[in-house]
Each structure stands twice: as structure tokens, then as C-alpha cells.
């Protein structure tokens, strides 16, 4: 795949049929958006970091299934996925450690914790959700890529 705009000019030899590719093009953005919605509303409705992260990862896996792995890896390379995975974990740990400033590990340190059913409330919980979704999304995507590519280095899959 060496064409720049791979989504606009699909290579007919790679991936699935034109029907699948067209549907994927239409839906993949919505899936990504839905994932972001789930993760950002984790504190006011069911869902949260893990579920949102899984849906975000699924949108990339969706591209991979329809267009082949080259296109998907161009959108999110393995290096970037691995970077985001570590970054998510570190961010989560950092949020937990900042709790020490208030006196306790994992303390919800915002003075004003907001009120129920408001998006900008709940202190550190939305931030934690974002960190978890980074970790889960990148981690799940890289697990999938590693298992697909058959050329893997044995990697630590952490239960977080």
C-alpha cells in the first residue's frame, strides 16, 4: 500500500469487498466517536475507561479487518500504540500519586467535586478514565496486531 489517501482510493486487492469497505468508511468514525463518548461519560453513566477504550480499539481493528493491516498500522503504528500504552499507565499512576498532596494515595484531590449528572464533575475520575482508556485501547490494539502478525515478541499483557 503506497497510496497516500488509502481510505479514499481503496486498493481492490487488499482487504474485503467494496461493500464492506464502504460501510466501514461510513461507520468507523461513528464507532470512534461513540467510544470517546462512553469514556468521557464514564462517571455519569454506565461505561467508563475500560469499555470506552475497548470501543476505541475496536474502531481501529475494524479498519484492519476491512482494509488490511497496512492501512490500520499507518493510522496507528505499533510504536505509537506501545507509547500510548505506557503513557496511559504512567498517567494513571501519576494521578494516583498526586493524591499524596492531599495526604493520601488515590485521593480524589479536587476540592470541589462537582455535582451528580454534570459532565465536568467527579474530580479525578474522568481523568482516570481517560488514562485507562489510553492504556486499554492501545493495549488491546497491540495485542490484536501482535497475534495477527505472527511475528511477535512475547509481551507483558498487564491486567489493569
Amino acid at each position, binding site marked *: 500500500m503506497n497510496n497516500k489517501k488509502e481510505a479514499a482510493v481503496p486498493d481492490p486487492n487488499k482487504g474485503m469487498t467494496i461493500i464492506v469497505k464502504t460501510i466501514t468508511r461510513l461507520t468507523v468514525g461513528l464507532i470512534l466517536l461513540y467510544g470517546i463518548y462512553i469514556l468521557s461519560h464514564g462517571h455519569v453513566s454506565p461505561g467508563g475507561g*475500560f469499555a470506552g477504550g475497548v470501543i476505541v480499539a475496536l474502531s481501529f481493528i475494524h479498519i484492519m479487518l476491512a482494509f488490511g493491516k497496512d492501512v490500520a498500522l499507518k493510522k496507528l503504528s505499533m510504536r505509537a500504540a506501545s507509547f500510548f500504552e505506557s503513557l496511559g499507565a504512567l498517567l494513571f499512576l501519576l494521578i494516583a500519586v498526586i493524591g499524596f498532596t492531599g495526604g493520601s494515595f488515590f485521593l480524589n484531590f479536587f476540592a470541589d467535586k462537582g455535582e451528580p449528572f454534570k459532565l465536568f464533575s467527579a474530580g479525578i475520575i474522568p481523568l482516570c478514565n481517560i488514562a485507562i482508556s489510553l492504556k486499554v485501547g492501545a493495549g488491546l490494539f497491540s495485542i490484536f496486531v501482535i*497475534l495477527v502478525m505472527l511475528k511477535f515478541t512475547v509481551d507483558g*499483557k498487564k*491486567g489493569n
Partner: protein
Amino acid sequence: MLLYFLCLVLFSIGIFCILRKRNLIKIIIGIIIAEYAVHLFFALVGYRAEGRSPIFTPSENIFNMVDPLPQALVLTAIVIGLAVTAMMVAIAIRIYDKYGTFDITKIRKLHG
């Protein structure tokens, strides 16, 4: 009571699968089945007759809700299960890479 019994049956199927099957992938499936039986049992422990889901809404007050803690814990356990399953599949594929078979009776370099 029937539900708990079915849970036990599911668990037994999983354990049977682990003990009796010769194929690596079937062993992995057995572990997943047994794991899900335990998760199901955990979720059932938190059940309450006529209970509803423990989601707080602005419009109404909830009186009889099921225990939310097991659900949160089951979610964690599922995540751990995901990590373990990914690890198992990765190792199984690599074993297939080296030995060219999934049959455990043929994978026998270690003994003693």
C-alpha cells in the same frame, strides 16, 4: 437454585475440557469456560430477588437494587481473564510455530 446448579455444570464442563482434551486451543477454551462460570457465579451472588440495576438516575429513587460490588469485581476479573487469554493464545501460537502441532501428546521435550 437451578441457576447455581447450571453454573456448576458449566464449571465442570470447563474443567473436563482442560483435563481431557489434547488440543492446546481446546484447553484454552476450557479455561475460558471455567472462568466464565466463576464470573457468572460471582454475579449471581450479588443478585437480589426483584432487584434492579444499580444505576443512579436523577428522576427516581431506587429502593431494591442488586449488589453492585460483585459486578465491579467481575469486570476486573474479566480484564484479568483477557490478559491471561491473550498470553495463552500467544504462547500457543508460538508453540505451533516451533512444533508444528497443537497436540499435547506430541509436545514433549520436557520430561522427568
